[in-house]
C-alpha cells in the first residue's frame, strides 16, 4: 500500500498574500478599493464592481460554526482513515471558510458554536487556518 500525501495549497498570484498571512499568524481577505466589498475567496476581480484594485485587510479570526460534517469515506485517498470533521466557519466579518475544528470533542460541535482561528503550520510555506472553540 503506498501512501498519498494530503494535498496542500499551491499559492497563485491571487492567493499568495493570503497564505503569506497565515504563515505570519494573520487571517486576511481582499477589500475592494473601489466599492469596499470584502471578498472571499481571493480573486483577481471584485464580483460587485469588477475592479481589480484591492488591499489585503486583517480579519479578526473570530466567528461561529455555520455547518459541520464528519467524513467517514472520502473520495480522496489521502483522507482515508479515521473519521474527521469538516466545518464551514462564518467569520464575524462575513466570509465563510471551509476548515476543520480542532481541540473540540465531536459531541460538543454545534451550529453557532463561537470559534477562533488556530494556525496549523504544515511546512515552511503553508500554514492552514483551522478553528478551535473561542476562549
Amino acid at each position: 500500500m503506498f501512501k498519498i500525501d494530503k494535498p496542500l495549497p499551491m499559492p497563485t498570484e491571487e492567493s499568495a498574500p493570503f497564505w503569506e498571512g497565515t504563515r505570519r499568524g494573520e487571517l486576511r481577505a481582499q477589500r475592494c478599493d473601489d466599492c469596499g466589498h470584502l471578498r472571499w475567496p481571493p480573486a483577481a476581480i471584485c464580483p460587485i464592481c469588477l475592479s481589480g484594485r484591492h488591499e489585503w485587510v486583517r480579519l479578526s479570526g473570530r466567528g461561529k460554526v455555520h455547518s459541520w460534517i464528519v467524513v467517514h469515506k472520502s473520495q480522496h485517498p489521502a483522507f482515508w482513515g479515521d473519521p474527521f470533521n469538516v466545518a464551514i466557519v462564518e467569520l464575524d466579518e462575513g466570509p465563510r471558510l471551509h476548515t476543520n475544528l480542532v481541540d473540540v470533542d465531536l459531541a460538543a460541535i454545534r451550529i453557532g458554536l463561537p470559534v477562533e482561528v488556530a494556525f496549523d503550520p504544515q511546512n515552511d510555506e503553508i500554514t492552514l487556518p483551522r478553528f478551535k472553540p473561542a476562549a
Partner: protein
Amino acid sequence: MDDPRQLSGKAAIAGVGLSRFGRVPGTSAMGFALEASASAIADSGIAKSEIDGVLVLMPAQMGEQHGWASRVAVHLGLAPAFCSTMDMGGASAIGMMQTAAALVHAGVCKAVLCAFGSQTNPQGILPTMFGSQFAIPYGDVGAMPFMAHVGRRQMHEIGITSEQYGAIAVAFRKHASRNPLAQKRDPMTLADHQASRWIVEPLHLLDCCLVTDGGGAIVVTSTERARDLRHGAAKLAGFGQVHSSEIVHPDRHEAGIGGGREAGDQAWRMAGLGPADVDVVQLYDGFTPLVVHSLIVYGFCRPDEVGAFVSAGELEFDRGRLPTNTAGGLLSEGHLSGFNHVVEAVRQLRGTSTSQVPDVEVSMVTGYGGAPHEAPPTVAYTVAILTR
C-alpha cells in the same frame, strides 16, 4: 425575452434512448454515448440525415479532451451544422434540451441530438482530484461533503430528520424494484436506510446516488416534425435555468430555501402552469437532501411541511400526491447524469413507465450540477416541463 411563452411547446422530444448501464467494466464512455444515441434515433424514427445538431456532455472523468461532441458526430456519421460539448454536470441534460429548442426555434437546426456517456474507470486516464485550495486541504472534497453540509443546514433550519431522508430513499427504491433496468432492485426498508454506514455524517450510504457506467440520449426537433414521427411529440412547454452559489454565498436566499426557485418560476411562467398542475416529476436526486430542497424551491411544499410530506409516502407512484422518480432515480435506478430522468419523464407521457401514473398530461424533470465542491460552490439548476 419579452414573452417567455412564445417558445412554449414549439419544440419537442421525439426520441429517447439509454445504453446498457450499471457497473459495466471494460467499456468506454464513447461507446455508451454512441449506443444511447443510436437507441434514441431509432426510438424517434427520424432519418439520421435529418439530424443537423449535436450536443454532448463530456464526462468529468475524461479530463480535458477537445472536440468531444464532434467525435460523437463523426462516429455516428453525422455532418452537423451546429455541434458543441456542454458541461453543467447533472444540469446538462435539460440545459442541452433548452439549447436544442432554441436552435430549432432560431432555424439553425432542424433536429438536435443531445447525448452523454460515462465510464467511471476509463482507460488511459489518470484519476485527478479537483478542488479549491480553500477546501481540499481540509478534506472537503467532492459532492458528498457539500451535500452533507446542505443536509446539516436543513436539519438545523427546518428540522428535517435522517428518517425523513430515508423515506425518500425507500420510495425511490420501491419504484426501482419495479424497473427491470434499475441497478438496485432489492427492496429497502427505513431500517435498512438507518443501518447503512455513514459516508459523510449526516448522510448514510443510502442517502447517496449510485455509481454508474452508461449513457443516455435525446432527440429534440420541432413539435410539428415530431408529430409525424413514431411516438409523436413530448412537447417542451417550459424551461428554467439559474446559476447559484450556495452555503458560502447564501445571502441571496431566504433561510431554509437556498437557490433554484427562479429556475422553477421561469419554467412555470413559460409553460403557463404551476406546481399543482404536475402529474409526475423526476427530481435530480444526487443525494436525499437535494430532493427535500427541490420540493421546496419548485413550490411543491413549504419548508415546514416537507418532512411530513415525504414520510407520508406522497412521493410513491401508487399512493402519493406527487409521484416522484418513478424509475428509481439516481439513488436506485442509476446515475446517468439525469438523462435517465428525462427518459422516464417521456415514458410517463407515453404511458410506458413500469410505475405508470394514470393519464399524465404534465411531466416535469429537473437537473442540478456544477462545482459544488469548489469555493465558492457554484451550481446550475435546470427545469423542463413536458406536455402532450
